């Protein structure tokens, strides 16, 4: 009894705060990883806000937009914070969401379906970009940017060991052979690196595992989009021999022949991208499989300025395994989106602002200054918008043209993020030598069955 009194008193202090707005303010939030990324996003959002405000003024409305910047580096921490805030009804009206989170967020009731059928802009987004944000027939977000993944290499190191400066690998054996040559002739250089630790999160799935797996899977599976989840059969599909081939590559590279260095990745954990990306510049790493935006990291205003980048950096589309009936060039794309918080008090205004964010003008601007690939066919990359490094924009454009036709996407399923986590654990197990490919894959399949239900998993040869 005595205890209840203070409890009741403290609860009584919890009075709902009555906000009495005079001018309407909507809010937008995003996360950033310190400067210079914060500045780039801020400029882009400010540009969109200016356009939006004048649009609203024409309609006689006085609207303000509050920008909430979250200085959270790790994507998963941002996700946790965002989700906590949404659930508590405190998140911004417009939220920055990674594209593969969309189905999960929709299932949780966090996103507002968008009335895209009344908007001409919607049709200008590439079909795949529309597909990524559509779930159960409704659109829930607008793709802000997209990207491709490829293999970078250092031309100076290649020249030193007699490999071609305009190297175009056509199969996995081309890559492994190049790595072996480098290992023999340049013992202080790490021949190849790709993410193999759980601390790198989705990067390990996207820039690493899928880049190999897609080259081992049957062509039909990849082109139909049913390469991980089969939408026709409604099951998660594991093509056993393709998965084993991929895992064997990890074993070969990181455990058997030490063509890649896993221990520096483990040591650096969440910041493992730093020694890998700076390593290519500093001639410590000869090849790196990573995303198209890394070019921005090597720009004069980037994290690892590389003055000789345009001369010394080589890149090539990632080839398939070379086995019959596999893709010749592989890529998987992602991207970030802006969506509307389902608990917003101003859904119509939020949608109007979202349309501005998703306009060709704003997307062109963002992709030009952040070295991403535009998601609308009428958005163009303009090197003039990025005066400090116009050749990065050109490079980005070249990469897009060479690789976008071959790229695929992650399955839009709410369980996907959890499946991806299991994949990252699988990769780390094999790459650290903790388990062999067969055993690790068996345990992965068991965990997958536990996660989504055994009737939703099918193991194919």
């Amino acid at each position, binding site marked *: 009894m005595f205890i209840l009194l*203070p409890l009741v008193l403290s609860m009584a202090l919890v009075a709902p705060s009555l906000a009495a707005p005079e001018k309407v303010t909507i809010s937008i939030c995003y996360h950033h990883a310190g400067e210079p990324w914060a500045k780039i996003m801020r400029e882009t959002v400010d540009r969109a806000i200016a356009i939006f405000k004048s649009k609203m003024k024409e309609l006689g409305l006085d609207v303000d937009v509050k920008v909430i910047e979250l200085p959270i580096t790790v994507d998963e921490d941002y996700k946790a914070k965002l989700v906590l805030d949404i659930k508590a009804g405190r998140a911004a009206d417009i939220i920055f969401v990674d594209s593969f989170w969309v189905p999960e967020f929709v299932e949780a009731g966090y996103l507002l379906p968008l009335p895209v059928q009344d908007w001409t802009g919607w049709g200008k987004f590439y079909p795949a970009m529309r597909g990524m944000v559509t779930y159960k027939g409704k659109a829930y977000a607008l793709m802000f940017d997209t990207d491709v993944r490829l293999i970078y290499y250092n031309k100076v190191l290649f020249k030193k060991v007699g490999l071609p400066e305009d190297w175009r690998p056509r199969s996995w054996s081309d890559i492994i052979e190049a790595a072996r040559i480098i290992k023999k002739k340049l013992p202080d250089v790490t021949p190849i690196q790709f993410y193999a630790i759980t601390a790198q999160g989705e990067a390990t799935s996207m820039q690493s595992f899928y880049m190999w797996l897609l080259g081992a899977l049957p062509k039909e599976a990849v082109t139909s989009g049913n390469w991980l989840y089969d939408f026709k059969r409604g099951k998660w599909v594991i093509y056993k021999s393709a998965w084993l081939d991929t895992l064997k590559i990890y074993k070969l590279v990181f455990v058997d022949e030490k063509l890649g260095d896993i221990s520096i990745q483990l040591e650096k954990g969440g910041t493992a991208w730093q020694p890998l990306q700076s390593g290519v510049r500093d001639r410590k790493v000869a090849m790196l499989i990573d995303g198209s935006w890394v070019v921005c990291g090597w720009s004069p205003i980037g994290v690892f300025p590389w003055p000789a980048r345009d001369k010394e950096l080589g890149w090539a589309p990632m080839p398939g395994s070379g086995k019959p009936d596999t893709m010749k060039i592989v890529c998987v794309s992602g991207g970030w989106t802006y969506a509307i918080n389902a608990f917003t008090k101003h859904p119509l205004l939020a949608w109007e602002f979202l349309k501005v964010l998703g306009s060709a003008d704003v997307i062109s601007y963002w992709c030009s200054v952040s070295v991403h690939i535009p998601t609308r066919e009428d958005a163009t990359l303009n090197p003039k918008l990025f005066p400090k490094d116009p050749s990065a924009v050109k490079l980005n454009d070249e990469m897009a043209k060479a690789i976008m036709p071959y790229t695929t996407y992650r399955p839009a399923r709410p369980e996907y993020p959890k499946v991806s986590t299991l994949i990252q654990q699988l990769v780390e197990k094999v790459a650290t030598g903790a388990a062999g490919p067969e055993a690790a894959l068996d345990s992965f399949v068991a965990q997958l069955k536990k996660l989504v239900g055994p009737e939703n998993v099918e193991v194919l040869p």
Partner: protein
Amino acid sequence: MSKKDKNIFFYIIMVLPALMLMSLFLLFPTFWGVIISLTDLSLLGPSARHPKFVGLLNYINLLSDPLFYHSLTLTVWFVIGSAIIGQFLLGLFIAIITYGKGDLLFKIATGLMITSWILPETVFAYIWLAYLGRDGLLNQLLRLVGVGPIPWLVEYPLQSIIVANIWRGTAWSWMLFSSALKSVPKEIFDVADVDGVSLWQKARYITIPLIKRHIVTDLILITLWTFNQFGWVYAMTGGGPAFRTLLITIYAYLRAFKYLELGPGAAIAIVVFLINLFVTIAYLKLIRGE
């Protein structure tokens, strides 16, 4: 009568703020935690919109969860290694050895020990990251005797955090035992010296029994504290590599905040709480039995 009433009135006033803060930030959240652990509440996916009451399912699932046993085992080793063997024995030993001393050597040594204890958690985590790094001081020193650079946190992660925890916490046990020894009348020790008792015998038959109560107090405190360690370990290793330093508190955190499964995460945390309960009860019984 009226005086007693006045007393009670003042008592209530003096206790009220504390009680309010505790109910708001401890009592209620604990109950919330227990209730949530009985649901499948998640922050994402369908269970975010429609959480279901699942009874003891989360707890039962833990029984068949290899990560749960793994993290529990790791934590037990962590507690035994760093607290019981490390901090306790080291603290006791140093306290006995330095009884009555106060010279410069003593001041330097104990000053260092204490500084390692007061150092803020984040700084502690990062200087050990630097110390154990591949190009860090430990490897620099080892290279002088020909031992190649070893990435300690990658190859010996559990041992590394055990040693780091011993470094951090020994000062507390030492301070406790030093004060305890000081509160014992000096004459008792002097008598032992005159009688020609050996160091070891003196420690075993006189010193230790005299401070038995302090020994038990110290053990219980450092056991509980070590078992509940989270911040700096997470900052240093994130529970890895490959879950090799996944203390049970870190596992609870990962389930709740990385995988966003609040129900199962709460169940793990409640299990930690129950283990704390068990240890505390054991301690009280020991104290009562004095």
